[in-house]
Every structure is written in structure tokens, then in C-alpha cells.
């Protein structure tokens, strides 16, 4: 493979200095970057290993109730944290529904945001791909596109963002803390990933030299803990990306939905917050018709980008199912098959 320099800075300042080189790449768990390097899709001349930066592997509760997750917290560690899993059960469920135990041990939450699409044409250096090589075209558009986007795609790119984790985060209004040469800034996670438009190669809001420092779940995000589910549809019951997935969280008072938080996964180049559906649910009573109407609202703009029209129906159905599951109450224990509609473990609700 291409030779590169490997740096392992001890301070954030050193890391940011090293990353000012446009040919540098930031390394977290490496579960995606190293694959892309082996495939010849990424070829950085400098790898800046962030895993020794101090203080970024913590889960902390700030005085105002905000929960802050350092970018280097491992995907396996976060759902294992009892306080976190109790406050944000659908985030924990999403993490455990993703990848495999081995990958979760290595992967970091910051890296999860930064992972690339698994579109086969993006991952094939010989294919036309506007996301990887601007202006070359999109081989996915007329190619194998069964699992491509149904929302927010453009003729330039029909890829999806593969993350499970980001879906409930988008629903809960998570904030991304960003560090860069010009200091710190923050963004809502739901806006962090860019839709392709004309410029498919711009995939996130990160400017050159910037890194994800932490994620924050704002005060109030834990208020949904009693009614929150992440459901994920796929052919293989573990270690597979979603065909479609949905995060649904409700704040119920006296049998009425006061507030709903919804997002879809596997449907677009970003985790897809369904705000119109959220609005529709506010003040309604939980009922199948209500959920179906919310699903319809969430998918109103959906369109097939290829041989994937079936995903539109499935996305609506899984959103309605996730809403019903959330309304029934968060399970007392993490399901044995997290995120699965075919789980057989006890579904006694913790907070119903």
C-alpha cells in the first residue's frame, strides 16, 4: 500500500497542527479508514492517530444536565455505560444493532459520524463516483442500487450514510462539538452530514483540518427514556447495514404525545430527521392510524433512486412500528437482538 507517516499526538493542538496538512487523515478506531486505504479509495500521506488525546474517552454529565460523549469513546463502551443506556436507550440499542462485537470494540463514536458510505461504487476506485472523484459521474445510478437512497439524493449521488448510531442522535437533537484551527464550534448532528446536491464529494460540514471532539445530548433528551426504540430492518439478523431503520422517541403525558422525536436511517446521505412527522404527532394520542399518518408524512418526499422503491414502503412501516414500540414503552432490558423486529426476549416495559 501507499506509504504514509504515522503521528500519534499527545495534545489537541499538536493534532490540529498535524491535520492542517490537506493530505492528512484522522484515525480513530480505523474500522473504516483502514479499509478505504486498502481498497485504494483513501490514500493519505499522513495518518494522525487521535486515540491518545487526553480526555476524549469520557462520558460526562455537565451541570446543566447535558451529557457529553468524547469522540474517542468506543462504540462498545457507550451502550455498556448503565447511566447512559438508561437515559438514552434507543442510542444504546442502535449502537448494539450495528456492526459486530469486534468492530464495536475498535470503533469510536467520533469515527462513526465520519464513516463513509458503503456504496460499492464509492468503494471501487475503478468506478465512476462523484463522491469519491468529483465529476466522474455516478455508476450507482444505473447499477446495483437496491440499498441506495430514497430521500435527499441527487442525480450526482444516491449514496446513504450507513450509521445506526447517528439516527437516534439526530432524533434527540444531539450537538456535535468540532475543534479546528479556528477554535471550537458546534452544529446540530442532524445537519452535520451534507446531502449530495451537485457536490457529492462534500459529505460533512467539517472544514479541512477540523475534527469531531465530542457529542452532546442536550438536557431534556433523557425525558424520552421511557418511550424510545430503534428498529432496524435487514436480511441478516446481525452484522449487516440497515435496509431501513427508524428511531422513535415519545414524551407522553396523560396518554397524549406531548413531543415526538423521529429519524430514519438507511434512506439518505444523512440520518433523516422527520420533523414534519414529529409535528403531526405532537398532541395526538398514540394509535396505529396516527403512526401511519406520521410515517406517510415522513416519506412524503421519498422517491426511488433505482431498484429500491420497495424501501419507501418499508421505511414507512418501520417508522410506524418503531412508534408503536416506543409508545408501548422502552423494554426493561436490552433486547437480545437489539433493533430487531424478530427479537424474542422479554419485552416488559421499564417505564410504561
Amino acid at each position: 500500500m501507499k506509504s504514509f507517516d504515522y503521528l500519534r499526538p499527545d495534545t489537541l493542538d499538536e493534532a490540529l497542527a498535524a491535520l492542517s496538512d490537506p493530505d492528512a487523515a484522522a484515525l480513530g478506531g480505523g474500522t473504516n479508514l483502514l479499509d478505504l486505504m486498502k481498497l485504494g479509495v483513501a490514500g493519505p500521506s499522513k495518518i494522525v492517530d487521535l486515540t491518545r488525546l487526553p480526555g476524549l474517552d469520557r462520558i460526562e454529565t455537565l451541570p446543566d444536565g447535558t451529557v457529553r460523549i468524547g469522540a474517542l469513546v468506543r462504540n462498545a463502551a457507550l451502550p455498556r455505560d448503565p447511566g447512559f443506556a438508561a437515559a438514552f436507550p434507543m442510542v444504546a440499542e442502535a449502537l448494539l444493532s450495528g456492526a459486530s462485537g469486534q468492530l464495536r470494540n475498535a470503533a469510536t463514536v467520533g469515527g462513526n459520524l465520519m464513516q463513509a458510505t458503503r456504496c460499492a461504487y464509492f468503494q471501487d476506485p475503478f468506478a465512476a463516483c462523484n463522491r469519491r472523484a468529483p465529476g466522474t459521474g455516478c455508476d450507482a445510478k444505473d447499477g446495483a442500487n437496491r440499498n441506495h437512497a430514497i430521500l435527499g439524493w441527487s442525480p450526482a449521488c444516491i449514496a446513504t450514510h450507513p450509521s445506526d448510531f447517528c439516527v437516534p442522535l439526530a432524533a434527540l437533537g444531539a450537538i456535535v462539538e468540532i475543534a479546528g484551527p479556528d477554535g471550537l464550534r458546534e452544529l446540530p448532528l442532524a445537519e452535520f452530514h451534507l446531502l449530495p446536491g451537485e457536490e457529492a464529494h462534500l459529505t460533512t460540514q467539517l472544514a479541512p483540518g477540523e475534527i469531531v471532539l465530542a457529542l452532546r445530548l442536550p438536557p431534556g433528551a433523557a425525558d424520552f427514556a421511557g418511550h424510545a426504540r430503534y428498529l432496524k430492518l435487514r436480511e441478516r439478523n446481525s452484522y449487516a447495514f440497515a435496509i431501513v431503520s427508524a428511531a422513535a422517541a415519545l414524551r407522553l403525558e396523560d396518554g397524549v404525545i406531548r413531543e415526538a422525536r423521529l429519524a430514519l436511517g438507511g434512506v439518505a446521505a444523512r440520518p433523516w430527521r422527520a420533523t414534519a412527522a414529529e409535528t403531526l404527532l405532537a398532541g395526538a394520542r398514540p394509535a396505529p392510524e396516527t403512526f401511519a399518518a406520521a410515517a406517510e408524512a415522513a416519506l412524503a418526499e421519498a422517491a426511488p433512486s433505482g431498484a429500491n422503491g420497495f424501501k419507501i414502503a418499508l421505511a414507512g412501516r418501520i417508522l410506524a412500528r418503531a412508534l408503536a414500540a416506543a409508545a408501548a414503552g422502552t423494554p426493561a432490558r436490552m433486547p437480545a437482538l437489539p433493533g430487531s423486529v424478530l427479537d424474542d426476549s422479554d419485552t416488559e416495559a421499564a417505564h410504561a
Partner: protein
Amino acid sequence: MPDDFAPASHVRLGSNSGQPQTRLDGLAKITGQATYAADNAPEGMLWAVYAGAPAGRGRVASLDTGAALAHPGVVHVITPQNRAELQQDPDARAHVFAWKIDILQSETIRYAGAPVALVLAETLEAATEGARLLAPEVEPLPVRIGFDDGEPFEAATVGIGANPATSVGDLEAGFAAAERITEVEIETPPQYHNAMEPHAIVAQWQDGRLVIDTPNQAIVMSRPLFAEYFGIAPEDVHIRSPYLGGGFGSKAILNGPQILACLAARETGRPVKLVLSRAQMYGPVGHRGATRQTLRLGTDAEGRLTALAHHSVSATSSFDDFLEPAANASLNTYASPAISASHSGSRWDIGTPGPMRAPGEATGSAALECAMDEAAEAAGLDPLEFRLRNYAETDPATGRAFSSKALRECYRLGAERFGWAGRPMAPGQMRDAKGRLLGWGMGTSLFPAPMSQALARATLRADGSALVETAAADMGQGAWTALAQIAADGLGLDLAQVEFRSGDSELPDGGVAGGSGHTATAGSALFSAGQDAVAQLVRLAVEDPASPLHGAGNQAVRAQGGRLMLEGDPSRSESYAAVLARAGLETLAGNGRGARSPEAAGAHAMFSHGAVFAEVAVDPDLFQIRVTRLVGAFAAGRIINPRLAESQLFGGMVWGLGFALQEEAVHDRRSGRLVNGDLAGYHVPVNADLASIEALTVPEEDPFVNALGVKGVGELGITGTVGAIANAVWHATGRRARRFPVMIEDLL
């Protein structure tokens, strides 16, 4: 050498066979002490990495060899321009097990990923980057992939030298007599072996001899195939293959990268290691070719088959002719007065398919079992009852008696264990406690019980222990263990007293680890070698006045636990060591041979059988499927090691699950490149896919297959399982499988 071609009386094995012995190589494997081919790193070794064709068809116009050679660490680049002459034409099929292979014989591209140049470097990283820097420029031609774009042709053979069309009885009359006719068309996709261990080779030349570390399912048979390319004698090829991390047919046949590595070692005068990346395993090392199968089943008013016609269009490469013999699965399974099995070909711009675990049987059984289920439904019969009405008492293809066939018992035992009774006939009738659709389906398993030929040597040693040797192949299935158990029984020794050497071409030919015939073949050779050694020992004893056995007839002496003893009077006995010591022998060697008796082969049809029952749960809106129960009952002759046999049957059944619901290689129809050529994209089952699995074995004595009564269990479990799962999906949802794998959108 004893003549074991005599019709076999049933052999009484010793106390080792039949025991659930854990893998003798298990500790070495889990502690990393077992050396796989790629673990070898001889002094001075170079790394080889090949660049693959980025197009599916066309011509390589240029390669940037300058850039590759300029990369630090790169030593040499081999291209069609400078590749040394070889003594064998890679496009000749010099042997029934030799395929046309790609070893840089031209710039023509026959499939995406085919080697276009080989880079040799001091490190793996340098070789990899060198290969990338070659950046081949291609003059592409339109790619033909898929049954609609493939070029149809009439096949001369299918599988390995089998007839493309076979028929028995009067098909037309059979259909004319039918009360109803069921027609089914089903497609199966290209599938890849995906052994956990990638194909690898470490090649070195030592004084004119070629020494190779490579995983190989047919170690001695492969020697001449390597030798022919380099104009050396087969004896001058030494293949070491102690462990394979899975073969499934893909490591039985010589492949292009292997020859390239040997050639590079000769050209550079240094050992060369070449390990395929996962992505490179989708091309030059075979796969299961796609099929488009059509079945017509005629049944009479009682639900008995009157005619069965099975045709498969089997995909192969543009340049070679391995056709998945799918339709032949219909020749031996169910009774029908008229059966036709026929094949035609479709040429695609892909690597040549080859044998992959249950080649033909897996694809053919999948389609046949689905069609049988539809015919049962049409006849208004329970699927099991329908199969029992069409039970083949003799082999439908040849009319021969089966050497043994305990399938009825498999049906009974499997159905009972599963709880098949009371299954509603109509689909969509059952729900679980959570409201999911439940479905039950079944299928019949069938796989031939072939043997190849093998030799073995058993050497008794002065201390009473023994060394047994044969060049068998442990693919992870447990040959090291099961064969050692048989060998110990042949010698009348405890397993701990036997040192088993294998996996090396300098040893007696252990035959092919393929066709589920390895235990039968190599086991027979080992057993008879042990018997030969013991017979010599007995002769020494009975002829020796100093022996307590002096004067006893040969037949009256029994060998057990390292001692010879008089039948009926165990007080007259002595140890092997004592006999050897008195005779002044350090060692005493016996030889053995394993092969099918031609008389028995001519008189009987030999198959393993089974019945698989599946339950699936399907989400009623989202149609995600989970197999909640798989129960298989199998009759496969004598089981040497129940633990390993169960494990093999599990492996087959789980493979069947992958076939039914997951496995599919997807090619881009324009470029010919794989779009899911890795284990993240090409799905095989995970533990969460299967809630419960049971593999039962039905006792079966078979005096004809071989002296040991051993059939085989390696491939049997896939057959039957695919159809059972697809039929269960129908029973849950009312949707019939028209292609594999069954996907969510097929059920919407």
C-alpha cells in the same frame, strides 16, 4: 497389500471409531500453533501481489510497469510481455481436474479481477502498492453477465465430465397420464466458497525441486499438475498442506495465482509468497455458477409422480465449461416412471465456476424441493406424505437397489423431533405469541457416497506404538481426528498410541478430500494398512514357538489394545512390542488401499439421505425472516465420530440457510466487477440467524459402500435445507420462492 476389492464383509471396528473424540488438532489451532500456508516465511522470501483486470472483457492496452518498479522495495514485475515460457498450455485442460487458468498468457481480459501482472517486492506493502501503481489501461468490450445477456450454448458435459442430458422412461407418456402438471422456474445466483483462509502459496525451488506450502484438497493428485507447467517430474513437486481453513471445492483445483507464484520463485531464485486478498477470491479460484432451472412435475390422482422434467441453464465463463449439474439432482431422489435431467449453458464474462460444496446437488435440490412442495400443494397433500408417496425404493435413474437407504426412518425421526404432525395445509395459518407469521417446510437431503482411491502406510514401532501415514487433507472438517480413529482401529491400538502424519505429498496418496468421500476413501486405506501390519505381526507370533500364540491359526487371533490374543482365551496373549522384540524388528510396516469395489459399485446405487424440517418466523409487515428451528435427520452409513459428523451436518445446514436467504454475488452488469466482493457485502449466516439447530443421525449399516460402511456427511446437509427453508417461508407468507436468496422485497 491386502486385496480389499473383495466384496466387503462388514468390518468390526475397534473402540476408537464411534467415539465423539474432540479434534486432535484443536489445541494447536486455537493457540495459533497450527501452521497454515500463509504462516510460512522462508529466509529471503519475496511477496507477490497481482493486479487484477478492472474490466470484465477487453484487452489490457498498457501497464505502468515503470511506476511499479520505481516504488521502493519492488523487485520485479511479470506481465504477458516478459512472462517466461511454460511447458504447459494454461488453456489446455490436461486433466479432468484441470481448468483453464490465467497465468498472464495474453493481454486479453476474460473476467474482472483476472491477473494482468504480478509484482514481486521485499514487503507485502511494497508489492501491494506496486500492483496499484500498474494502473492498467483497458480497451473494454461490452460485458455479458446474467441469463439475459449471456451467450447460450449446448454443453458437451456438466459438472466433472457428466452427461448434460439423461432420461429414463417415456416422458411424454408420463405427462399425458398426469392428472395435473406443476411447473416451476427458479434462479440461483453466483455464490462463492468464501473459505475463511484465503488461497495462499509459498513456493520455493530447492535443487530443481519445487516445494510448495499451499492449502490443497488433493495433495498427491496435484503434483503432476504443477510439474507439467515447469517440465519436471511429479516426484519433484513437494506439496505441504497440513491445515486448510476451509476448501469447499475451491482448493481442489489448480489456480492461476499458484502457478504464477511458482514461476516467480523460479525467475527470482527466491521463495515467493502470494496470498489472495478477500476481494481476489471472487474470480480466479472458482465459484458456484448461477442457474435458471425449470421443473415440470406430472402427478396422478393419488399424488404419485408420472413424469419429472428438470432443466438447468447453467452459467459458466466465456472460455471454459464447468456447468453446475443442477438438474441431475432429480435423477435419484424421487420415484417417477419418467425422468429427464438436462442442461444447457450460458456464457458470461466471469471467472470459471467450479465445484462448490454439493455442486449440482445444492442448486438442484433447492429447486426440486420447492417444486415438490408446490406439487404437494396442488395435490392437496401434506409435503411429507407427498414425498412418502413418491419414495424411491430403487434408484430411479438406474433401477439399481440402494446399497442402503434409511430415508424413511429419517422422515419419521425428523418429523417426530420437529413436531410436524398437525401442520396446517394452507399458508399463513400460524402465528407466534408476538403475532409473527410462522411457517413450516421440509426437504429431502440426498448426496452420493463416492470414493476416490487412496493409499496408506501403518508402521508398528518397537515400543508398541504406531505411525500411520497418508496424504489426506484436513479442511477443518476433522480429518486429522476421524482418520486417526479409523487408523487406530485398524491397528488394534488406542488412539493415543497412534501418531498420524498427513497433509504432505511425500506420504502415500490419500486421495481427494472432495465429494464427501474422504473419510470413506482415506479411512479405508488406513484401516487396511493397519490390518496388513497386524496380519504380519500375527504371522510372526503364531509361527514363533516362544509366543503364547504359537500354533494358533491366523483367524483365531484378535488384536486389541496393543496386544494379540487368542479368540476365546484372552489369557493367551502378548503385546505387539513383545512380538517385535523377539523378532528383532524395530518396525513393521503394513500398506493399505482404499477404493470402491467395482462389483459393489456396479450392483448398487450409493447415496446418503436425510430429511430437513424448518420453521421460520416472518414479520407480517416488514417481512424480515428468521429461521427459528432447523431439524435434520440423516442416514449416512457408519458414523466414525458423532461430534464431528454433527458439526459437518450443522455446517451444511447453516450453509443451506445462507443459500436460501443470504448468499448472492452481485456483479455490475456493465463493468463485470463484483459490487459485494467481501464478507461485509456478501452475506453468510451469523449466529443470530438461527435460533435452534439439531442434526440427528439414523443408524445405517451399509455392507456395500466399503468395508467400513462409511458414506459421508460433508455436503449432505445443504441439500434439503434450502428447499425446507423456502417452503417454510411459503407456508408463513404464501409467497413461493422464484429466486434465491429470498429477499424481503420478494415477499412485500
